[in-house]
């Protein structure tokens, strides 16, 4: 038994003429999680409008740069992704998670790194404001039509796209000091041994 509206796939397909790919899964307690990938990111606003009309609540937005798929040598290349954007480790995936009275429907759009622009959902969903500002400051994604595109958490003095640019502190210190210190200790130990033997 599921409450998930069966006609939502047709409604989303009508709103997104470039095409959609929808999969859904209902767990043992009757809660459905559905994923709808839009072939064209320009269909995001019309698709979100369909969900708004059905009383959906925007839970949150996840932005990330998916890893490129592993291709073994000599194997067939993977099928092109549904959105026509090559997953090269630089492209972005944006996942808009909507709540439909307990069930979750996620709209997925892919953006190429060199043309990473997407429409703002803030005019439709007031709470998209912070979520969009947050991914704008950690990635080089532009949001068209955001009413207030200020920094959210990170100070204006920090250059944008921190998640694409900053080197982790652990990488930094491993490369700079740990092995040097270890070699110094080993060298001294060897020297002490030699000194003791002679």
């Amino acid at each position, binding site marked *: 038994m599921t409450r998930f509206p069966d006609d939502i796939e047709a409604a989303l397909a009508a709103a997104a003429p470039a095409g959609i790919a929808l999969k859904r899964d209902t*767990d*043992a*307690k*009757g*809660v459905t*999680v559905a*994923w709808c990938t839009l072939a064209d990111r320009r269909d995001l606003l019309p698709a979100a409008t369909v969900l708004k009309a059905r009383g959906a*609540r*925007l*839970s*949150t937005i*996840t932005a*990330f740069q*998916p*890893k490129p798929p592993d291709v073994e040598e000599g194997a067939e290349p993977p099928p092109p992704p549904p959105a026509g954007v090559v997953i090269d480790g630089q492209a972005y995936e944006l*996942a808009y*998670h909507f*709540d439909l*009275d*307990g*069930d*979750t429907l*996620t709209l997925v759009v892919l953006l190429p790194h060199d043309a990473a622009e997407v429409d703002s959902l803030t005019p439709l*969903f*007031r*709470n998209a*404001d*912070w*979520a969009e500002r947050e991914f704008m400051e950690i990635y080089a994604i532009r949001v068209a039509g955001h009413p207030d595109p200020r*920094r*959210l*958490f*990170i*100070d204006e003095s920090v250059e944008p796209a921190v*998640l694409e640019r900053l080197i*982790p502190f*652990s990488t930094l210190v491993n490369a700079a000091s740990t092995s040097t210190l270890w070699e110094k200790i080993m060298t001294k130990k060897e020297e002490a041994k030699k000194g003791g033997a002679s």
Partner: protein
Amino acid sequence: MNAFTIPVGPLHVALEEPMYFKVEVEGETVVSVDITAGHVHRGIEYLATKRSLYQNITLTERICSLCSNSHPETFCMAVERIAGVRLPERAEYLRVVAGEIKRIASHLFNVAIMAHLIGFDSLFMHVMETREVMQDVKESLFGNRMDLGANVIGGVRYDLDAERGAYLAAQMDRMDRDLAEIAHLYATNHSILQRTRGVGVLSHADALACAVVGPVARASGVAYDVRVKAPYAAYDRLDVPVHIERDGDVWSRAVTRLTEARAAVDLIRQCLRAMPEGPVAVAGRPAVPDGEAIAKCEAPRGELIYYLRTDGGKTPERLKWRVPSYMNWDALGIMMTGAKVADVPLIVNSIDPCISCTER
């Protein structure tokens, strides 16, 4: 009359954590509020992708202290969904027990601070003393007063034998009595009613527009509770009442929390009665293939949602979560506009603010 701007924060006596408000006032009335966030932004989402799935149970428990159990619980639910693990029935009940213990302690802390802000310090101390019973329960059952360390992938890592079960039941009897008395005070005391009724109102329409969740939403008449709408753990077999208020003011939010704390006592009793014998976790470490999952739970402040993407390796490819407090800051602007400056700390407290959660 000329408007002027009062800075409140980032460090302020009435705030537990750093947040910077620019409150524009005309006379004594707040005209608008601007918020500058990011004072405790720690980049935990990035750190999570550098930690193994098992290390992340420990990491997520440390995002926030008051809802510290909800984070690892929801994270484990996301991993379990990808790995296709079904919890043993006893583990499902034990997850509810841990979650509801944390809910009582969290809600009492918030309503206690409200009494303190009103200047009713004897009530503040009385509520904190009652909350201390829950702190003792946590310390006795889990060994810690804040971080329970209750969750593992595929179950829980604590059990209630006959002696511990009897101890918990006895403490719940005591809480039931004390909470009834406290709830009566908040519902009838003149000082409380005068300072909190009609103050910091969030209308039903604004609550929907801001997409707030948890007690803040339910105090404005939005009947949404993840435990009922998207049941997890053992909630599909328990009687979970969803309490709503209509007025959306500071008082309604406090009353909603107190009612939910009393309901949590009842939920723990229901679990103690219905919990079957059996294992508390699946055996061994399940293999986690590549996949993606959504998991939600009703944290003390409302819906907590996790998104997990795995690539079959040890670490998550992406881990994202949105805490219930995230939408409350926008709603706070609506609650404060038109309010008296003297009521600003009370209104801020009424959203049960959690900044370490919001900024991660």
